[in-house]
């Protein structure tokens, strides 16, 4: 928080891929070494810029998945087969390739920690990425902020960070994770088996008297649906922060 209000110029810089982690069949994390990295806040993103040999460029935003405390910067990308940038990042990129990026970017969809209000995190698909940075930050900073993640995926195989979320929620320091699977459920599935709706939010959300801070992230229609339900349920609109990833995914 000792961040000066006036920021320097936002320059493009090169990171090199130190590690590739296949998170699900369609999602991979790129762990990057960025020599000049200035640090970040949980919830911020980077802009990635790809340049072809004839000069053609494409730019997209990717949330930072790693905690501010982590050694390296990580992004997690879902591959959209008909997309332009994501199939390159998940499929073409190899270890020690260089990626051009700039950041950290954003300040609205950010959780710094250090206050008593409980956290409600609601994610659809790759929308879990900035929320994971918050969960990792919470854990790395030994925060015990009561936190619930409600996380919607298509099927069990599509759950990003599943093992890590299982481990973190088993630690008993106040993190609860509720999954819902919208398309396919394994035999004996004990989580939700439908899209996030108001009844589900009423079951998992903190009582509004506790005045939770709420972050909602994912595909645009999902984010708007969830935010609408939360407002209808009486949560303070000023405490509901949203980030839309676009039309697809989830």
């Amino acid at each position, binding site marked *: 928080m000792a961040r000066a209000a006036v920021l320097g110029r936002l320059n493009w810089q090169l990171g090199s891929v130190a590690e590739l982690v296949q998170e699900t069949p369609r999602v991979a994390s790129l762990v990057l070494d960025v020599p000049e990295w200035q640090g970040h806040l949980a919830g911020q993103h980077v802009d990635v810029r790809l340049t072809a040999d004839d000069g053609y460029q494409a730019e997209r935003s990717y949330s930072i998945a790693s905690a501010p405390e982590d050694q390296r910067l990580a992004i997690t990308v879902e591959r959209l087969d008909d997309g332009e940038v994501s199939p390159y990042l998940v499929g073409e990129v190899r270890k020690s390739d260089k990626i051009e990026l700039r950041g950290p970017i954003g*300040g609205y969809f950010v959780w710094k920690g250090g206050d008593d209000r409980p956290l409600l995190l609601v994610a659809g698909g790759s929308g879990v990425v900035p929320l994971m940075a918050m969960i990792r930050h919470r854990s790395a900073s030994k925060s015990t902020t009561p936190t619930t993640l409600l996380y919607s995926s298509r099927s069990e195989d599509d759950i990003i960070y599943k093992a890590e979320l299982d481990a973190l929620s088993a630690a008993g320091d106040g993190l609860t994770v509720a999954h819902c699977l919208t398309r396919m459920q394994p035999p004996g599935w004990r989580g939700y088996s439908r899209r996030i709706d108001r009844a589900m939010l009423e079951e998992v959300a903190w009582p509004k008297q506790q005045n939770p801070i709420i972050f909602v992230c994912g595909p645009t229609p999902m984010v708007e649906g969830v935010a609408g339900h939360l407002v209808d349920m009486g949560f303070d609109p000023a405490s509901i922060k949203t980030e*839309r990833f676009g039309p697809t995914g989830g």
Partner: protein
Amino acid sequence: MTVQQSDLKLDGNAIAGLLREIFTMEMTTAESTCAGCHKVHAVGQVEVYMNAPGAVVRCPACGQVQMRIVKGGGRYWLDLSGIRCLEFSA
């Protein structure tokens, strides 16, 4: 032919990087007062359309255009006429 079923709507977070090219401040936490309906929203909250010749920012309450940002040929064009006031911390 690919047809997008939902509108290609994003929010102010998606232009945070673009705004940082123009302003020295982090702008998504700035509060903008709509020139049309006078409602106040954080810039992170506003509606943004980027699949266009420029970025078009609309008021989440009344839908009116608040901001247009065009970048090209080594120049920027910034129309803020749909915003009555932009407040940010010094």
